[in-house]
């Protein structure tokens, strides 16, 4: 009951963040809404019930749950009983079909079958749900509140619905509103149709429209019926088309006060590894031109827009000043970093004294100086859309990049100490075993670069695979089986409208099962080898010394001089054979006829890659941030004369 006193008594609006979602970061959506309402003079509190839940069950089990395939939706299942009522046979079926993967929808996912330990953790998480919902009802004096806004992303839907239903039953005066990614487009419409305790649903970006809605309600006026915002009793009959592009500079700074107060000042949970969330752009500038076939991050929101560099900088400075004592890590939620920022925002960040650790998603076809800028600006962790080294698969995905460019990017990341988080994707409609076998041959040569996780593709709502399945030979598109257990009273058609994760039938290579095992094993080998692998060079202007400490090393040390040294340095960036020949003519005309032979020697030594007559050196320069693992130090001792 202590929280009742903690809640701002003038709060007419309570925004709620329910489990299961990380308690390491604030909800960006709710924090922006809080600012929006504050600016309108409307008292608002954000209640992080996900923190209360984490305190009950512990962070460890929640981390275990994060490792399970997302489409198993175990976080939602944990709360589903509270919403729909007890049904032991349904539970058993969910465990058998989904968690033990009898439906075989995650055939290549490492963690698809939960261990007994994790399963008992899941049951424990479920056993506290009823008492936890009681706690949520009890923790706030809801009789003083007028509007409750739920954000729902990923696996927050069932818990949010469970509490919403209970609040409406106990406090019928409450206006219950929903928003967040789980409510986008048709998913939001079906939510409104099927759950009569929900009064309003925001189908897209909500900062201004929710503010208008609450303002109208509190002034006893009829809320404005925006096409982006469904209000019970006034739902237009035509399907909604959500979202008009907004001026992002007008979005208020997020207010994280409630998060840090509840997560750090009032919680017993460890306050390590917390981060703030920031948004600098919406949509995807690449997707506007070429929508990656598997990407379901954008619906009608693909249209790209971003904050000005000045506005973004103001926000970073403001947040660092206000919350920098809690954390100096900022996770930017953008789908992709604005390219303009390479000449505007990032130089400002670099020249500032903010000293932040920043995460951004990025495209991988960057130049070397861009990676240096990333490092200098504090972008220490990035998520590039690498996905593959196969040119054929990359083309099928519409990634607009080659495999060798991806390798080049990984090399420069290593060189500048920028950590890429990336997935190796497999399981595409139309792929064949050889698409992977060719890449697997490269893996041992790349073991000194940051390894991927392997991920088998899923059909997500809003992706081209979902919106136009026949174009990709996908038939019988249907929701993942988990949805059957989360929405037992829905028809198949309604489930297809509420679901985000789908499966379909499409032709796959007949030997997919055998190569999937090889892909998983090869990625694991890379992950293991990364800790101790090294391939780097130092250069004294006459001799370039390459130190090779990979499992595939042909020679531990290679010394290159003259044309060979020049060639190796030239291929730091991808070079075609014709370009190399024209350049060597200027410097070493006598060597022009021996270029192929020299390159072949480097290929034989496994310190260079070739693809489609283009060459790339693989050793990392020690000129910048790279420093070899300790395993390698004594192996270079002979190059120096220690005292």
């Amino acid at each position: 009951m202590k929280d009742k006193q903690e809640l701002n008594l003038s709060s007419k609006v309570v925004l709620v963040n329910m489990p299961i979602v990380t308690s390491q970061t604030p909800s960006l959506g709710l924090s922006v809404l809080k600012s929006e309402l504050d600016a309108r003079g409307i008292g608002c509190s954000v209640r992080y019930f996900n923190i209360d839940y984490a305190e009950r069950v512990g962070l460890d089990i929640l981390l275990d749950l994060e490792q399970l395939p997302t489409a198993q939706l175990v976080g939602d299942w944990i709360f589903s009983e509270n919403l729909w009522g007890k049904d032991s046979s349904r539970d058993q079926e969910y465990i058998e079909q989904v968690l033990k993967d009898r439906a075989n929808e995650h055939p290549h996912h490492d963690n698809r079958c939960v261990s007994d330990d994790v399963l008992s953790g899941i049951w424990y998480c479920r056993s506290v749900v009823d008492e936890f919902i009681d706690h949520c009802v009890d923790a706030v004096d809801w009789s003083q509140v007028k509007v409750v806004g739920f954000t729902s992303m990923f696996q927050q839907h069932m818990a949010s619905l469970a509490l919403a239903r209970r609040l409406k039953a106990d406090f019928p005066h409450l206006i219950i509103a929903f928003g967040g990614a789980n409510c986008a487009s048709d998913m939001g419409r079906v939510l409104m149709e099927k759950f009569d305790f929900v009064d309003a649903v925001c189908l897209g970006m909500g900062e201004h429209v929710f503010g208008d809605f609450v303002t109208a309600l509190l002034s006893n006026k009829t809320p404005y019926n925006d096409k982006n915002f469904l209000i019970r009793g006034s739902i237009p009959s035509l399907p909604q088309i959500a979202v008009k592009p907004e001026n992002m500079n007008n979005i208020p700074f997020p207010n994280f006060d409630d998060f840090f107060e509840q997560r750090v000042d009032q919680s017993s949970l460890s306050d390590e590894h917390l981060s703030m969330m920031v948004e600098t752009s919406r949509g995807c500038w690449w997707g506007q031109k070429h929508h990656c076939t598997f990407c379901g991050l954008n619906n009608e929101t693909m249209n790209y827009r971003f904050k000005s560099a000045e506005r973004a900088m103001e926000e970073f400075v403001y947040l660092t000043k206000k919350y920098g004592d809690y954390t100096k890590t900022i996770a930017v939620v953008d789908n992709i970093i604005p390219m303009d920022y390479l000449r505007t925002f990032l130089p400002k960040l670099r020249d500032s004294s903010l000293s932040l650790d920043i995460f951004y998603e990025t495209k991988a076809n960057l130049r070397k100086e861009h990676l240096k800028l990333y490092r200098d600006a504090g972008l220490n962790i990035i998520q590039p859309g690498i996905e593959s080294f196969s040119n054929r698969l990359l083309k099928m995905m519409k990634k607009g990049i080659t495999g060798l460019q991806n390798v080049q990017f990984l090399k420069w990341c290593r060189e500048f100490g920028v950590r890429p988080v990336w997935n190796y994707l497999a399981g595409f409609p139309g792929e064949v075993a050889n698409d992977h076998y060719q890449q697997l041959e490269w893996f041992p040569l790349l073991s000194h670069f940051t390894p991927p996780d392997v991920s088998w593709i899923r059909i997500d709502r809003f992706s081209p695979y979902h919106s136009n399945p026949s174009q990709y030979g996908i038939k019988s598109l249907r929701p993942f089986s988990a949805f059957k257990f989360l929405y037992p009273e829905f028809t198949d058609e309604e489930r297809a409208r509420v679901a985000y994760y789908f499966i379909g039938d499409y032709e796959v290579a007949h030997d997919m099962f055998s190569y999937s095992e090889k892909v998983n094993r090869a990625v694991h080998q890379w992950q293991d080898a990364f800790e101790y692998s090294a391939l780097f060079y130092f250069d004294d202007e006459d001799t370039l010394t390459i130190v090779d400490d990979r499992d595939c090393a042909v020679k531990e040390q290679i010394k290159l001089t003259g044309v060979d040294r020049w060639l190796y340095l030239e291929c730091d960036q991808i070079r075609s054979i014709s370009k190399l020949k024209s350049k060597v003519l200027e410097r070493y005309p006598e060597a022009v006829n021996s270029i192929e032979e020299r390159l072949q020697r480097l290929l034989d030594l496994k310190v260079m890659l070739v693809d489609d007559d283009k060459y790339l050196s693989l050793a990392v320069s020690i000129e910048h941030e790279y420093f070899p693992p300790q395993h390698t130090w004594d192996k270079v001792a002979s190059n120096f004369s220690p005292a």
Partner: protein
Amino acid sequence: MSNQNKSQSSRMRMLATAAKLSSVLAVMGVSNSILLNEANASEEKDEIKPLEMKKEDKVDEAGLKKLLNHAIESGDMKAAIEKYGKEAKLNDKHKELLRSFTKDELKDVEQIRDYLNGEKEIPFRTRRG
């Protein structure tokens, strides 16, 4: 000297210091992981086995760790040996090897220590990961 060459040269010097440190530590029967802080050391990142040696030549690792950290912080290896040499159970040969580290080399060792301990954890689950 161009900026690139300066940077390359300072990195090479650091690598030389790392190589020297590695060989000196091997003589003392300890591995490079002595530079790891507690959090990282507990993850047992380093599986390198130091040289086989007689029991009496082996130093006390906890004492040596304190000695190295003191030398790094103060830039004064002699004072560090004075303060922690006994606790680290150093023999004369060990002391001589450690005394050969110059102030500049100790600065390099500090940077090397930071690199070893510096791997950033990802504090959140990425959306697509």
